[in-house]
């Protein structure tokens, strides 16, 4: 993504010499922030800019859970399903989202607004159950607070 090259140049200067390959993760994150996902053309551009093998970027995109190569809904609801959250109602959270929005984990609402995923531990066990919407943590959820959160997304 050519518009980001100036930013990438500045980022590169913060790393020691020889660390160009390290830029793969931060550059992909920035591209995804701009586009919503990483497109094939973005991969070609990044390969040329960083001079890393294309397969390296394909592998990284497939390995990390936060990267995606296809668009999803405008709001990405990520529900933690690990120990503490499960013990504080995570399954109820998923059921309530399904009840209100009609989507199960892995699905997107018809209007393309909301995508639901279940994720592993978010480091928020003390404020379980937790839903992350895009980047933001919504902690200490109760059924009422979750309804308010969902309604807020509908507006």
């Amino acid at each position, binding site marked *: 993504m050519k518009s980001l090259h100036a930013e990438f140049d500045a980022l590169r200067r913060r790393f020691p010499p020889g660390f160009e390959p390290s830029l793969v993760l931060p550059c992909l994150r920035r591209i995804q922030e701009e586009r919503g996902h990483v497109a094939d053309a973005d991969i070609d551009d990044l390969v040329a800019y960083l001079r890393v093998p294309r397969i390296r970027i394909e*592998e990284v995109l*497939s390995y990390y859970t936060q990267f995606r190569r296809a668009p999803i809904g405008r709001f990405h609801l990520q529900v933690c399903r690990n120990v503490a959250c499960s013990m504080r109602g995570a399954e109820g959270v998923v059921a309530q989202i399904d009840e209100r929005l009609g989507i199960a984990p892995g699905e997107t609402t018809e209007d393309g607004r909301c995508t639901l995923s279940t994720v592993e531990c978010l480091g928020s066990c003390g404020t379980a159950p937790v839903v992350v919407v895009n980047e933001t943590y919504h902690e200490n959820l109760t059924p009422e607070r979750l309804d308010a959160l969902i309604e807020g997304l509908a507006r």
Partner: protein
Amino acid sequence: MVEIFIDGDRVEAQEGQTVMQAARASGHVIPYFCWHPALSVPGNCRICMVEVEGDGTAAGWLDIACNMPVAKGMRVLTDSPRVRSRRKQMLQLVTLNHPVDCGICDKAGECTLQDYHYQYNGEPSVSRDVKVRATKHFPLSDRIVLDNERCIVCSRCVRFTREISKSDSLGIVNRGDHSLVRASEDGALGRDPYSDNVIDICPVGALLSRPFLHQARVWYLEPTPSVCPGCERGCTVQIWHRKREWKLNRLDAKLNARIERVTPLENAAVNGPWICNKGRDLAQLFDRPRALAPLVAGREVALDAAVDAARALIAAARRPVALVSSWASNEELAAFDRTIASRFTCRVKTDWLPLPGERVEDDVLIKADKNPNRTAAIARYPGSAFERPEAFPSGCDLVLVWGEGCRADALPAGARVVRMDAWLHPDNARADVFVPISVQTERSGHYTNFAGTVSRFEACFAKPDGVADAEALFASLAAAAMAEAT
């Protein structure tokens, strides 16, 4: 030197070696999937675990041998009860999700996993759960098909493209038991002229040759050592063909004289354990239509008649030129030299030039000269062949064209032509005399590569009836010369 003990044997290992290297160098067997002597050490299959005995103060421990540095006095056991138990566990896990495809898998009979299973485990699966499913028959490139269910994710193929062929064209996507070997989406694997080496080094039937797919069971085949004629590197290869005792009786007899596949013949002095894809495709080279009939002025004659006619032409010629094949073996060149060469102005010809799209040269194996034995030929005769009619010495009245790479219109108009070649071509009928000759796979001999290394090839097949060996042909032609001299 580091003194260690392996299974009680005293071994002098080198500084910096791993136990795996020291074991192999001293003839001790440690099984492995992911380790390879020419590749980096990933240490992921875990099958090479060995036991290091405690020394009284510390307890013994087990760890992978491929990443274990030798240490003075260490006592390694490669087959203790603990090692056997761990090895069996690891094999149970390697085969946990492995499909029992042996009945339809080309790797059967030369499969490391098969061999290790029977040697170190030998029991049915202990799992009652469904195996992981993945893509089967996945086209990795035009030449290579991948079965991800069989794949044990050892990463040999990935490391090969990263470290040896340097195409960086293979990787492993996803993670956990969803991991899949994949080729980069820009098609780089299809442009990697060494891609097929991953088929050899795959320890299971995951990576298979598409041309060879389901063509033959390997135990019906045998390899004959040979030398690839694709360039002056002269990689030693194994040419696989049906064993005589397994020849097909009812089907086309040509199937019994077919190159089924070509694999590297490991050679520390020339190509290591690798060859390029051109060598894999030798069947295409040797399978072209053969010239089978001797010709005089374009008419089929018996071999004797053709030899007589050639002999007469040579005797009568006043300024004969010989264009010597750069595919001639050392033996053929010697025979030529001691028989009739002195009658001719000899030049070594370039039989083959690089084809469009073919890699010309690199720093792995491929050399720009696409002829296997120019080195030996130019040791005897000058290398600059006459390539246009005008270039020939004036008064040239006979050209002996030996091998490919010289078309009829490149020859001087007034000269007579004696052509000796293996391949069917309209130019054969335009020669005054044409004698069909044998190819490399029909005789034994040697080539000398660009560095002066001499390698031997053996005969795989019988030559067709009516086709002459060049060495015998030269002897026959010489008989006249000697008679002339006396």
